[in-house]
C-alpha cells in the first residue's frame, strides 16, 4: 500500500535582486514510500535531497507537481490544514544540537506535541516516560536540559519527539551524520528496531550510501535535482547501473586498506574511461 506518493515534484527558490529568476532545485522528482517501508534518498550537497524532505513536511512550497499522503493531496495546504497532518508525518533532523530548544527540558520538548494535540498533562507525562524508555534513555532525563546530553542522546530525544504522536511517516534528514561512528550504528539500529515494532515508514535522507544501504528497503539516488536511479537497496547499493551512482559508491572509502586500494584503482579507471 502506498503511503506517500511524490509526483513530478518541482521546487524553485526565489533569488535576491530585481527580476532575478528563481533557481529550480528539483526538476520533477517522482517517488513512492509504502507503508512500513524505508526509502533511502541519497545525493550529494545541492542535489535537492533535503528539499524533498522539507516539501513533504510542508516547510517549503513546491512550484509544481503533487505530494499525496494516504491518497490525500498535501502539497498546497494552508498552515491550518497542515497542522492536522502533524499526527501522521513527523521529522528527525540532522543536527541534534539546533533541533532541540536549549531552554526547554527534555520532558517539555517531548510533551509539547502531545499537549498541542489535546493530551492532558498526566497522560502526557506517562507517554513521555514510555517514549524515553522506547529510545533507551533514563526516565529522569525528562527533568534535564538538552545541553546535558551527548549528540547521540540528543538524537534519541529527537526520535522520541517524532514518535510521540505515533506517526505513519517520519522524514529523517541525515539523522546520523553528525554523530560519532559508534553512536551512528546504534542510532541506526534504534531506527530499524522502532520500524519493526511500529510499522512506521521512513523517508531517509542521507549523503552516505553505507548508512542508506543499512536501513533502506529501497533506494533513490538524486543528482542535481533529478532522480537518476531507484530500486531495491541491494541492487542500487551494490550493482548500480547509473554511472553517477557507481562513482558515488566507489568514492566512499572503506575501512580496509587493501580493499580500498583496489577500489581506488577501479575509480581511477572509471574516471579515465568516462573522460575519454
Amino acid at each position: 500500500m502506498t503511503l506517500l506518493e511524490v509526483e513530478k515534484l518541482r521546487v524553485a527558490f526565489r533569488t535576491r535582486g530585481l527580476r532575478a529568476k528563481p533557481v529550480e532545485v528539483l526538476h520533477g522528482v517522482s517517488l513512492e514510500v509504502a507503508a512500513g517501508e524505508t526509502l533511502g534518498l541519497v545525493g550529494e550537497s545541492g542535489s535537492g535531497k533535503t528539499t524533498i524532505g522539507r516539501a513533504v513536511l510542508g516547510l517549503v512550497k513546491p512550484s509544481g507537481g503533487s505530494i499525496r499522503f494516504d491518497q490525500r493531496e498535501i502539497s498546497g495546504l494552508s498552515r491550518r490544514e497542515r497542522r492536522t497532518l502533524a499526527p501522521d508525518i513527523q521529522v528527525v533532523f540532522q543536527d541534534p544540537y539546533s533541533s532541540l530548544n536549549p531552554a526547554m527540558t527534555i520532558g517539555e520538548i517531548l510533551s509539547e506535541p502531545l499537549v498541542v494535540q489535546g493530551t492532558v498533562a498526566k497522560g502526557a507525562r506517562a507517554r513521555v516516560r514510555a517514549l524515553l524508555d522506547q529510545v533507551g534513555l533514563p526516565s529522569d532525563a525528562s527533568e534535564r536540559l538538552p545541553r546535558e546530553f551527548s549528540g547521540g542522546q540528543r538524537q534519541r530525544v529527537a526520535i522520541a519527539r517524532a514518535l510521540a504522536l505515533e506517526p505513519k511517516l517520519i522524514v529523517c534528514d541525515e539523522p546520523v551524520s553528525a554523530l560519532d561512528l559508534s553512536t551512528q550504528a546504534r542510532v541506526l539500529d534504534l531506527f530499524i528496531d522502532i520500524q519493526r515494532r511500529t510499522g512506521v515508514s521512513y523517508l531517509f535522507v542521507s549523503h552516505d550510501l553505507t548508512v542508506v544501504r543499512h536501513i533502506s528497503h529501497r533506494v533513490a539516488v538524486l543528482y542535481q535535482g533529478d532522480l537518476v536511479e531507484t530500486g531495491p537497496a541491494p541492487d542500487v547499493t551494490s550493482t548500480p547501473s547509473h554511472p553517477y551512482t557507481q562513482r558515488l559508491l566507489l568514492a566512499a572509502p572503506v575501512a580496509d586498506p587493501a580493499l580500498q586500494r583496489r577500489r581506488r584503482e577501479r575509480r581511477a579507471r572509471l574516471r579515465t574511461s568516462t573522460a575519454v
Partner: protein
Amino acid sequence: MSTDRDHGSTTAEAASTGAVAAGHAVPRMPMWQRVLRDPQAVITLGTLIVIMLLGALAPFITPYGPNQTDLHAVNAPAGTPGYPLGADESGRDILTRLLHSINTATVSALIGAATALVVGATAGLVGGYFGTRTRAVTEWMFNLVMTFPGVLLLIVLMPVTGGDYRWTMLIFGVLLSPGIYRIVRNLVVGVKNELYVDAARVSGLTDLRILGRHVFFVVRGPIIIATAFMAGSAISVQSGLAFLGVGSREIPSFGAMISSGFRNLYIAPTQFLWPSLLLGLITTSLVLLGNALRDVVEGSKPAPAKVGAGQRAEVVADAEDAAAGTPALLDIHDLAISYPDPAGKQREVVRGLSLRIERGQTVGLVGESGSGKTQTAFATLGVLPDEAVITRGSIRFEGRELIGLTDAQLRPLRGKAIAYVPQEPMSNLDPSYQVGTQLVEDVRWALGLDGPEAKRRVLALLERCGITDPERTFRAYPHEISGGMAQRVLVAGAVASRPKLLIADEPTTALDVTVQAEILDLLRDLQAELGMAILLVTHNFGVVADICDHVAVMQAGRIVEVGEVARLFAEPRHEYTRMLLGSILDEKTVRADPPLVASEEGIRP
C-alpha cells in the same frame, strides 16, 4: 541483519547514559539569580529601588506639597530649619520637589519604555516571523517613525497632549519603538531558521504558540537590556522638555528644577546642583544596569586577549636535545593539555599523549569527538586558545622543543615547515578578499617573493592542485567557489612553502564523498612529490585506510593503540580500537527484512 551487531558496543553508550544519570546535574540558575550575583547589577538596581521608594514615600517624608510656596523661604539656603536643601525662587522646598520629581521620572520611564516595548516587540515578532510581505509593511512603518524628529515632534504635539507629560511619554515611547523592533526582528529572523522551530511546526504548533514558546525566549534577554537603556532615555527626554519649559508647570520634575536653578545661579548657586545630581545618578544607574544585564544574559565579559606570548605552558623544556641520532620529524612526548571547566577547575582533555612522526610518513590520528585529537594538532601548531594550558610533556619538531616558544619564535616554522589544512575551508577564507590575493599574501610572506613572482607561483600551485581555470579562481571571491574548490585552494596555500609536515584537521569531513576522494588523491600525489609528512586528524576509518600508512587511535585524551595501517585494521589489539572498527557499517550489510505491512492495524502501539 543489522541488530545482530556485537553487543559490546551498546555497553559503551549505556555507560555514558549512566554517567548522565549518575553525574550531578549542572545547576540551572534562573536569570534573576544570576543577576543577583553580579555586583554591578545589584548596586545599580539597589540604588534605583531606593530612589524609587523615596519618591513613593515623599508625602510621608516631608511636610510640604510639591507646589506649596512660602514667601518667607524664597531662595532659602541649604540647611535652613525645615528646608534641609533650601527652597527655590518661589519658596518651594527643594527636597520635597526633588522627591516628587522622582515619581515623575519613574512614571515617564515606565510609560515610555512600556510603550516602546509593547509596540516594538509585537511588531518585531510579527514582522520577523511571518513572510516577506508582512515584514515589508512593518519595516516601512518603522522606517517612517524613525524619520520623525523626536523632541521637535513632542513639542509640536503639545496642544494635542494638553501639556500632560504622560501623553508626551506615550508618544515618545512610539518614537523609541523602532529600536526594539529592529532588535526583535533581527533575532526572530535568525531563530526562525533554527531546526527546533521547524520541528515545532511539524509537531502541529500554531504560529502564536511557536512565537510564545520558542521564539520569545530568545528575544527576552536583549529586550530586558534595551528596556533599561530606554527607561533612561525617556527620563532624559522628559527632563529636557521640562527644562525647556514645555508642558505643565504644575508637575515637579528634574528638568523644571534645573531650569529654575539656572535662573538663580548667582543668587543660590547650589539650587541646580541637587536635581542634576539625582538625575545623573538615575540615568547612570540605568545605563550601568543595562550593561550589567547584558553581561549576565549574553555571557561573560570578553577575556583580554594577549598577543605574541604564544600558548600557555606550565612546563620548562629541557635544554638538552632528545636522544642522540637523527631525531624524529615530530616527537610528541607525554603531552597534557587542560582547560578550566565552568567551576574554574582545570580539566585535562589531553592526558599524556606520545606520538612520533617520521619524515614522509602519513599518520592518521583517529578518535571520536572530544577525544582530544584536534587539541593535539593545535598544540603542535602553537594555536591553542588562551584558556588552554599545556601542563606537561614536550613537542619536538626536528629535535627542537616547540612548547614555550613565543609566537615570534614559532613564526619561522608555522606556515613554512609546518603547514595546516583546516576542516571548514570556507570559514578559513576571508570573504572580502579575492582568493588569489589571500594566497599571494601567504606565499610572499612564506617564501619572501615579490608580488608578480608570488602571483606566478600561486597560479602554478592552483593548477597543480587540480583547479582547471587558475586565472578565474585567482580572481574569484570565496563565495563564488565550491567547498571542494576552496579546499583545493587551501591545500595549495599550505604546500606553497614545501612544508616538511602538513597537519590536516578533518580536511574532508565537510565535503561530499566524490570531492573527498579527489582531495585525498591530491594530498597523496602532493606527498609523493614533496616528500612531506602528513598528520591527518579524522574520525573516518575509510579515510585512514585510503591515505595513511600509520594510525594512532585516541580515546579520552590518550593514544590507546598505534601501528601500521594494515596491521591495525587486520588485528586491532586494544579493546577500544576493536569497538570502533566493529561499529563501522560494513560494505555488505544490506537491509534484508521486508517492510512490515501496516494494513494490519493492531501493530501500531
